[in-house]
């Protein structure tokens, strides 16, 4: 047989280094670590409430303070915004396009809608938390 198709090797572990598009994708996917972290952090906070102990809550709050934590949370916030929240909004119109009559609603409208809702929801959360 004269044919001998050549299969270019592809690294199963480092393929995403090949271009910027893939790297950004990997950074996006790794926001899941942050989600795990903050979810369990919140669950720990809940456990102190469940224990019905103001002291435990206070301990928890104190344990979260300090310059190290400030830097960590600040970076986490930026990372999360740029690699989870904003991309998610950007991609939303793809998953759920809206068509009115013959015309597709421009994706940008849906994206803007998401930002508006996000600002609103965040405001409600801050208000509930008494930070506003």
């Amino acid at each position, binding site marked *: 047989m004269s*044919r001998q*198709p050549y299969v270019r090797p592809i690294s199963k572990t480092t393929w995403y280094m090949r271009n910027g598009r893939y790297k950004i*994708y990997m950074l996006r996917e790794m926001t899941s670590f942050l989600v795990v972290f903050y979810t369990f952090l919140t669950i720990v906070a809940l456990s102190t409430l469940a224990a019905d102990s103001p002291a435990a809550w206070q301990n928890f709050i104190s344990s979260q303070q300090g310059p190290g934590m400030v830097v960590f949370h600040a970076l986490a916030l930026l990372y999360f915004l740029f690699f989870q929240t904003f991309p998610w909004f950007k991609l939303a119109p793809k*998953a*759920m396009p809206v068509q009115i009559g013959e015309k597709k609603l421009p994706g940008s409208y849906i994206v803007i809608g998401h930002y508006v809702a996000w600002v609103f929801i965040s405001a409600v959360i801050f208000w509930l938390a008494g930070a506003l």
Partner: protein
Amino acid sequence: MEIRQIELEVMRYDPEKDKQPWFQQYTVPCQEDWAILDALNYVKDNLDTTLAYRWSCHMMVCGSCGMMVNGEPSLTCKTFVRDLPGKVRVEPLENFPIERDLVVVLDDVMQKLHKVQPYIIRKDDPPPEGVEYTQSRGALAKFKQLTMCINCMCCYSACPQYGLDNNFIGPAALALAHRYNLDSRDQGKSQRLDILADHDGVWDCSFVGACSEVCPKHVDPAAAIQQMKIDGALEFWKQKLGFPGGES
């Protein structure tokens, strides 16, 4: 017309001679309005008749001239010399086995196009011969963009999930399936979803989105796949809860 010298670096592979691919350099005097395909044709006609590549229409519609141009899956008849640096690297589409030079093996994707049942499936009888379906412009607009796919397979070349695991049905074939799912004349959606939302179907897409970014026809397969995931999830519950597998 202005002539610009381009260093063309072309991947070569002759299975009867080469153990693995290598690069050959050609210096091509390009006219300013040339596409990369014109440069390749220049090589073929004037410098090296042994270079193998596919092309036909030279008007972005037959889908045969997809190649990697400077690392990006591109239609070479739509990629212009004027937009590129003086050194251009042309390789066969990634994620496919190389048959010869710039020609890749497409058997796998051809089978996938077949597998997704890309034709009108009816439960009811169609209108009688000579009588057309009515389809509102809005109904047409729903799937119109998805009919634009020229099967150039650039998207498969860009999709890492397909590269990592060829079992994944992949962007163009899934987009094609969605095109029929959305067609008001079709009634095969739930039947198709049984295939598309099974293993190796839509779930293997992790929404990298590269497929849509490289698509020369703005088909947006990434969007189609996400929509099908929603359809698949709804259909799953519909079947679990025993609703008749009707059309939505």
